[in-house]
């Protein structure tokens, strides 16, 4: 695979500006860069999801034109997206063969053969997962594995991973990396897009650094250290530590008492008697592996899902069954994990997205005061340096900019209780730091903060109190001190320890 050049313009933004990109056969090639640096765009062009305005692609010595993922698939190029493309109601086998289903008598779907085929792929590559399982039952790590199987089933030689580790636990990441190494051993080629520099060091052979749509460096990984990489990425040195001033504890703002959530027909409750207190000026960091109740805690506390038992108190008043509307009126601000569906309306403009939580403020007799809305959105875009036109659909923005819009909007509400769920998920270093500084800023103002995150760095760096959830239960709750070890938290997260006694 040789030199690729292409120029790409998207709503007057040069996403890729005359990019040369080269991957050698049978290597793991990392592509790093900030949000909006053009990594994903570049890969989407390679995978046929987007078209380049100019430039060409040479694959295995031949110039090729890739107009769709189908073309890419024929050439042997596969991609694992940041957001998985799986149908939860289908089994693994059904998801894998989707589009090239084995048929019985040329017409009927042959589910037995589908399972058998997928099992063969599993044996060939040494994956241990039952193809008859439903995708909705899987963990995030397993879903990703299904995506990989999907590509391998289509006999791809070049695999593209878009931020594959962003949702995984450390254990799952290790497993993913050993899978990647296995794939390299049998002759596959891998491109991995990532933000995490330690992963670049760990897994890749070579690395391409992108900034603002251009390639700024191509290096052998062995010849470059993390500091140098981050300098290339952001153009400035990054400090990996947060300053957290000690705060006198304030009063209890939010209290959860025996909060339980059951799904119909399920034995194990999704939330099992969760008790928690969040004080004014305190950041409570909830850590846990996906599927252990973090998402449910988020839904319940933001009023979007009704609890089956227990009470939630806000300033000692019962708010358990209030709608999200009344919760917002009481001072809830909330940055959800699901940005693309819950956190934003992709078919609406940036401006319409920005005013959702407080559009009541811009009304006069039910009619919007357009000038004030404009002033408000302009101010937010400027203050949060959001790259994009406020009148354009938010779907045209990059992931990082969408998150900034959500953050800006929620911070603009007057609140005393803030829920962040995976606030820096998939964001680059500079953008994450910006978000962290904002979280610490509102902490200083005395806001009670609930930080739900699968990123331990984030929790350890920001939280005053660390709570770990496992199988819907709170398995430990510690004040965050420097000597609290990561391993200990990890053991609680993975359910290896269950010796925590409730002290209070």
């Amino acid at each position, binding site marked *: 695979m040789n030199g690729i050049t292409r120029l790409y313009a998207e709503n007057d933004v040069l996403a890729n500006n005359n990019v040369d990109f080269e991957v050698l056969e049978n290597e793991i090639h990392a592509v790093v860069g900030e949000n909006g640096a053009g990594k994903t765009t570049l890969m989407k062009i390679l995978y046929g999801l987007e078209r380049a305005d100019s430039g060409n692609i040479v694959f295995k010595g031949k110039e090729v034109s890739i107009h769709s993922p189908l073309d890419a698939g024929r050439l042997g190029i596969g991609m694992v997206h940041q957001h998985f493309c799986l149908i939860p109601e289908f089994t693994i086998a059904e998801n894998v063969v989707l589009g090239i289903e084995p048929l019985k008598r040329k017409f009927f779907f042959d589910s037995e053969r589908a399972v058998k085929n997928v099992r063969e792929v599993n044996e060939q590559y040494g994956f241990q997962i039952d193809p008859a399982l439903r995708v909705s039952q899987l963990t995030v790590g397993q879903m990703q594995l299904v995506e990989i199987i999907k590509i391998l089933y289509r006999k791809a030689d070049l695999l593209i991973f878009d931020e594959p580790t962003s949702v995984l636990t450390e254990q799952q990441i290790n497993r993913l990396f050993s899978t990647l190494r296995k794939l390299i051993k049998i002759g596959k080629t891998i491109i991995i897009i990532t933000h995490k520099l330690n992963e670049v060091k760990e897994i890749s052979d070579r690395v391409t650094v992108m900034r603002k749509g251009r390639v700024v460096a191509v290096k052998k990984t062995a010849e470059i250290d993390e500091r140098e990489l981050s300098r290339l990425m952001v153009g400035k040195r990054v400090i990996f530590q947060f300053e957290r001033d000690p705060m006198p504890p304030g009063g209890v703002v939010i209290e959860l008492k025996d909060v339980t959530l059951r799904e119909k027909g399920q034995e194990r409750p999704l939330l099992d008697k969760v008790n928690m207190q969040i004080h004014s000026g305190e950041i409570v960091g909830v850590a846990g592996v996906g599927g252990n109740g973090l998402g449910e805690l988020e839904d319940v506390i933001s009023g979007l899902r009704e609890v089956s038992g227990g009470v939630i108190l806000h300033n000692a008043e019962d708010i358990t069954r209030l709608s999200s*509307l009344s919760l917002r009126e009481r001072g809830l601000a909330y940055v959800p994990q699901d940005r693309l569906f819950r956190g934003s309306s992709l078919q609406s403009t940036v401006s319409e997205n920005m005013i959702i939580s407080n559009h009541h403020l811009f009304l006069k007799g039910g009619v919007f005061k357009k000038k004030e809305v404009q002033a408000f959105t302009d101010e937010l875009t400027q203050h949060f340096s959001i790259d994009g036109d406020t009148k354009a659909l938010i779907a045209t923005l990059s992931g990082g900019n969408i998150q900034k819009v959500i953050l800006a909007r929620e911070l603009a509400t007057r609140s005393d209780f803030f829920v962040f769920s995976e606030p820096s998920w998939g964001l680059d270093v500079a953008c994450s730091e910006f978000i962290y500084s904002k979280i610490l800023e509102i902490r200083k103002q005395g806001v009670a903060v609930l930080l739900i995150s699968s990123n331990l760095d984030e929790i350890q760096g920001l939280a005053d109190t660390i709570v770990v959830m496992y199988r819907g239960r709170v398995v430990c709750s510690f004040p965050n001190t420097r000597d609290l070890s990561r391993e200990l938290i990890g053991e609680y997260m993975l359910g290896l320890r269950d010796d925590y006694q409730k002290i209070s």
Partner: protein
Amino acid sequence: MVRKKLSSVFINSVGLIITLGIAFLIAIFLIFVLSSTPARTIYYFFIGPFTNKYYFGNMLNTAVPLVFTGLGIAIAFKSSIFNLGGEGQVYSGALIATVVCLSLPNANGYLGGALALISGLIAGSVLAGLSGFFKMKWGTNELISSFLISGAVVLIVNYFITGPLDDPGNSLLTTCAIAEQYHLLKIFPPSKLNISTFFGILSAGLVFFLMFYTHWGYEMRMCGLNREFSRYGGINVSTYLVMPMALSGALHGLAGGISILGTYHMCVKEFSFGMGWNGIAVALIAKNHPLGVIPAAIFFAYLDAGAKAAMLHSDVTFEIAAIVQSIIFYLVTAQAIYSFIKFRKRAPA
């Protein structure tokens, strides 16, 4: 940005013009095959509506109720609510308006007329609102419930027209005629075009303002685009299951009332058939844009008027006229739906 927007409008209209061109070519081909006097037929089909004041005015007058029903559908669709009960809502609105006029034979024309129109409006609104309410309360599918309610209501209205309210002195199956003072002022004699035209334009403007400038419009559109997001943002989502439906029904009821006061002056059995369904077509062509509804309704009325003129002046039968009309119509609707889907697909990238 502005340039971009303009160019996308341009591309859209080029697509529409090409589709129209193809549709007309097919229509002309069909007329050549089916008619023994093709030149004459083509002339009346396409130019007919413009040949005299009577045809032209009546064409515009046909468009007026379609503007109302089209607006009603556009509001509902923009909120991702599906109102398939337009037929029953128009018909019952017409009946109620007639009943009000008949029961007040000597009242002031303006007051009584306004009362009649408002009653018709409320009738449609209640019928449609019911489906919204059921959806909010029990999660029933409004698409099905509105359709079924409408189906039943049509029969009930038929019963009243042919039974208790029937005018024995008229050979048509119809109610008695409403009093003279309720007739809406004609503005383009000898055609039936009347001041309800202005109500239509005004309503389109109002709906446009409502959807894009007000709090309710914003919340409705947000709920239409993403209900989860709206709930998250603190919008009372269940309100917007009922409200768009009620508004939609109100516009349908008004379409019925205005047809009575402006055009028919009596509630003839099944006079309004097609207004509800055609409203859906109009909204589709207009891509649910309130201001786009006006040209879309006129286009629809033009096809209708052309078909009528061709039937009167050439050897074309009703069936042939209907075939030609529907081919043009299907192609245009398909184009509208296609670009709508393309837009939906492109946006979430």
